[in-house]
Structures are given as C-alpha cells and as structure tokens.
C-alpha cells in the first residue's frame, strides 16, 4: 500500500467503511510509516475537535414552534377514506346542525324579543297618553289641521292615510317619543275608548319578522299585551304602532284604513 492509498483510506477506516482486509492492510502500513501515522493522528484530532468543540447552533425555539404549528397533523394510523373525510365531515355536520336547529331557534327567539320590546314600548306610550291630563298638543279640527301642526316639530313628515270618520274620530295630535326617537302621536276614539297611533322613523328598529298578519296591502305584527291590542307595521321609511284596549276587531278595522293599500 502506498502512502497516497493509505491517506485516502484514513477517514474510511474511522467511519467503518473498510472491509477487514483493507483495514488490516492500512494498519500494517501505519505501523511502518511515521508520516502516515502522523497523518492518521492529526485526522483523529481534527474529528475530535469538530465533533466536540465546533459550536452547534440550535434552531430558535420560536422557529421550531412556528414550524410545528404550521405542519399538518398526522392522519391516525389505519385511517381509511371514511376516517380521512370524517375529519371534515364531523365538524361540517356539527356546523350544519347548528345552522339547521340552533340558528333558526336563536333567530326566532331574537325576533320574539324584538317584537316584545316594540309592543311594550307602544303600550307604555299609550298608557302615558291615557294618564296625561293634557295628552294632546293640538285639538283636532280635522287631519288637515293636525298634520301641518307637526311641521318643524319633527325630523320627518308623518303620513296618515285615514283622516278619521264617525266610527273613529280623530281627536288631535301631539309630539311624543317611541323608544329612542321622536314620534307623531295621533289619537282616535272608538266610542269611549282611546286609540293611539304612533308614527316614527322605522330605520334601525328590531322589527319582528315572524307571526305577521295581512293588514291592508301589507304585513303587520298583531298581539295583545296587558289587555291592550297593538298593531305594528312599516310603510316605507316610517313605522306605525296602533294601540288600544278597544275590541281587537275594531282595532283591526282601523288598522285596515291606516295601512298601505295593496
């Protein structure tokens, strides 16, 4: 074995890549060649320095966490196509159940709460009219006298489709409030009963979307609360709340006259 051949095999010998015969030949050469023996010792020391003293730079923890967080989770062993799709189908089914059952129920309850709130406000406002010693700001000389009175007192022009008649005479009007906004209040009578009509801007209110009944050419929410019947409807940008303890059938007749025609 020449020195070049021996030196070319030094690293192979240390890495265990030589067969026994070649290893024996190399060892024989190193025993008789001081230069190659020195070279073998120097290579061993270099490996020792690299393996033991060369700084090893570990990946930053943040990098590892980022990589681990982004790496896809393994599919469970033995998972077939159904299990594989199940990862997506199960959550999807849960979402569908929520959409089909929970969401409609939640919507229904939200709608009911909204209707209750608007009805309660209408009844309370009607009670204020009844309790007030001077409920009317303008005594009625007819709708053409009452409507102009609101000019400058409201930020909208109340639209009234019914002027009053013998069955439902218009007593007068006032400026009131409905929830967070001003309202035009019209007071009708039905025999000895007082009927209040509140007209206000309809935007931004939680109008009930369920349980509506046809009134005139539109839809209205009709309900009874605390002995008072209330009829709520929208007509364009305006909202209407009609409230009274009069017979519901009579109130329905008045609502038909006030509501938009089909």
């Amino acid at each position, binding site marked *: 074995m020449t020195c070049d051949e021996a*030196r070319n095999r030094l690293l192979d010998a240390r890495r265990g*890549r030589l067969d026994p015969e070649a290893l024996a030949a190399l060892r024989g050469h190193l025993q008789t060649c001081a230069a190659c023996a020195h070279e073998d010792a120097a290579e061993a*020391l*270099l490996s020792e*320095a690299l393996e033991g*003293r060369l700084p090893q*730079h570990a990946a930053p923890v943040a*990098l590892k966490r980022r990589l681990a967080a982004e790496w896809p989770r393994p599919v469970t062993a033995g998972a077939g196509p159904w299990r594989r799709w199940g990862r997506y189908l199960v959550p999807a089914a849960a979402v569908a159940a929520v959409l089909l059952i929970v969401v409609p129920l939640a919507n229904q309850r939200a709608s009911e709460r909204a209707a209750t709130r608007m009805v309660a406000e209408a009844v309370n406002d009607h009670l204020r009219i009844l309790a007030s010693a001077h409920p009317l700001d303008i005594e009625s000389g007819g709708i053409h006298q009452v409507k102009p009175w609101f000019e400058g007192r409201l930020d909208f022009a109340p639209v009234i489709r019914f002027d009053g008649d013998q069955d439902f005479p218009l007593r007068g009007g006032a400026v009131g409030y409905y929830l967070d906004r001003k309202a035009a209040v019209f007071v009708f009578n039905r025999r000895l009963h007082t009927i209040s009509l509140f007209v206000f801007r309809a935007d931004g209110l939680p109008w009930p979307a369920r349980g509506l009944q046809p009134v005139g050419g539109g839809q209205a929410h009709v309900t009874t609360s605390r002995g008072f019947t209330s009829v709520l409807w929208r007509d364009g940008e305006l909202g209407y709340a009609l409230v009274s303890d009069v017979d519901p059938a009579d109130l329905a007749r008045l609502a038909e006259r006030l509501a938009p025609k089909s």
Partner: protein
Amino acid sequence: MARDVGEAYDHGMASWRRGDAGGLGREALAYADTLYNLARYLTHSPTDAEDLVQETYARALTAAHQYTPGTNLKAWLFRILRNTFLSQYRHERHNPTVGGLDTVAPTSQGVEQAQWLRGDLELDRLRKVVGEEIERALMSLGEEARTVILLDLEGLTEVEIALVVGCPVGTVKSRLSRARAALRALLRDYAP
C-alpha cells in the same frame, strides 16, 4: 431575497394547511436543529439561517410527493436546504474558494504532504484549538468545503453526501479530503 423567501414560505404553508404533506411525517421537524446549524454555517447569519430553514420546510412540503417514505429524510432535507441556499444566497456572498475544491491543482497536495511531516507540533495545536477558532476556520472555507465537512460531521455517508450536493461519490471523497486538509492548515495558523 426576503420577498422570495416569504412567497415560498406562504406557498408552502398553504400546502401544509391543506394537509398536503404527502409521505412526510412530523419526524421531519426533528431535523430543525441540524438544518438550522448547517444554515448558520452556510449563511453566516442567524436571520438568514432562520429564513433558509423556513423555506426549506416550505419547499419540502411542496415537493412532498417526491419523497419516498423509508429513505433518508435527513439527507433529502439537507439537499433542499443546500439547493435553496445556492439559488438564493450564494450570489450574495463572497466565496473564498474560487473555482471550488474540485479545481485544486493536484500538485498542491505535495505541499500538504510536506506539512504532514512537521512532527508533533500540529498535533499539539489541534489538541488545544478552541471552538471559536474552529468555527472561524470553518467559516473561512468555501461553501463546498464547509458543506461536505458539516454533512460528514452529521453522519451522512459519502453516497448520501453525493446525493445532497449532486456530484459523484468519488468527487465527494476527494472534496472532503481536501476540505479537511485546508481546515487543518488554517487551524495550524490559529493555534498559539
């Protein structure tokens, strides 16, 4: 460079989120330290090394279908890392080994042989050399020399190193031998 790294990373991450890991398992993440270590010695920069490792994993995911389970995953990842480095970093760096180790003239080996005969002085210096000096010497070598030394240090066989660097096994053998000889020569100068 940062934009390229970011785009590749985003693309890779999109594949990951689709669960498109192919034959790659989470054991690939176990090589983050060794990949980062090689990246540090290749790029000279902690920030660039981090970007390089991120892009390596991103590219690994996009090429997951090319990996055969059961083969050397570590070597496969090293190959991606080095190719990424060569394509994006090398032109920005000064390479001290002009022409590469493979172009070293055979006659220069004779000079090294003469130095081998200088007695025990070199052995004493190698015993006393400290980590900082080894690192500085290693970093002053060319990329090819650093890569083969570090891959050998990681325990890769010559065949595996050949796959990583994309050259014949014989070339790896001579390249590694010359790289180690160059490192020893540098360490002789650093030692007291």
